[in-house]
């Protein structure tokens, strides 16, 4: 089994290093949601999955990135009958 290591640096040092970048990206997400909310139409599976993932950000639990990626993943187990497309959309279309 892989064993997680100790946290690499102190919280204040990591905050100094990454806070402004995280702040900018969070504002970009907020602006994106404002932008699509101003536009007519309805959410597709990508927007639904993005909105649902926001709840992970402030739930106080660890491994947010892993849990978000899992929530966007195809949960089925068996191989698909065929590949009807080559691309992926970023979130399981049946979400």
């Amino acid at each position, binding site marked *: *089994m*892989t*064993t*997680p*290591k100790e946290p*690499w*640096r102190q919280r204040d*040092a990591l905050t100094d*290093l*990454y806070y402004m970048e995280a702040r900018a990206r969070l504002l970009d997400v907020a602006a994106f949601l404002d932008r699509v909310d101003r536009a007519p139409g309805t959410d597709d599976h990508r927007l639904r999955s993005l909105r649902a993932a926001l709840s992970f950000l402030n739930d106080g639990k660890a*491994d947010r*990135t*892993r849990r978000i*990626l*899992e929530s*966007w*993943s*195809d*949960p*089925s*187990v068996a*191989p*698909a*009958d*065929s*590949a*009807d*497309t*080559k*691309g*992926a*959309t*970023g*979130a*399981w*279309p049946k979400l």
Partner: protein
Amino acid sequence: MRYIEPHAHMVSRTTDDYTAMVTAGCVAVCEPAFWAGFDRCSVDGFRDYFRQLTEIEPRRAARYGLPHFSWLCINPKESEDLGLAEDVLSIIPEFLDKPNVLGIGEIGLNKNSRNEVKIFERHVQIAVEHDRLILVHTPHLEDKLKGTKLILDILRNAGVRPGRTLIDHVEEHTVRHVLDAGHWAGITLYPESKATPARAIDMVEQYAAERLWLNSACDWGHSDPLAVPKTALEMRRRGHSATAIDALIYGNPLRFLSQYSGFKVADHVGGSV
């Protein structure tokens, strides 16, 4: 700084990229066979591509003093046509003895279909029969987790030695599955999909860094051939030692790839990060 770029599609990059990579400290580049952006219509198209990977591109890289290695396969995106895929599989052994061929790759799954599974299993069979290294592509985005689990099952059932297989494009939801199965794992640094430098370093800090490598997987899409050295700089910003950085971007790929006796790095290697 010195580093090995273990996954780059150089046939789709310019000579300026070779200059930039060597200037940044690249001492060897490895190129898996991949999808050309369109489905090739005949086995002859693949024969020409395999010549490009084993003869033409190594000569182009050599002009920059950069050893070039390749992996051979038909990409899972072209595996739905089982007839064509079998024809391509039949010519791969013709090229396996070329001196720059590391093994079979990047094989794997794309949409996790039954035909993709069949052709993946056939590739694995060829690798086992010829005792060659394996490089595995895991699917994109929402297909990655399911595909990774399928791939691990297939490799286990085929009796593949995990230490001779690298499973690429891992992210936070797949890295532990791969490492716990005993395989090597590759983290791909992409501007949007896959991992950013910061997330890649998070994984390195949390998991078994001795079986991880970083790669740019630069191709004709949105990608950066200098992603590995840029991530090394990001590690410096976090306070990682020169020794740790060198181990990750040079030592680790060197250990895995040296399982192929013909692997070598540029002889101008010297110093450290």
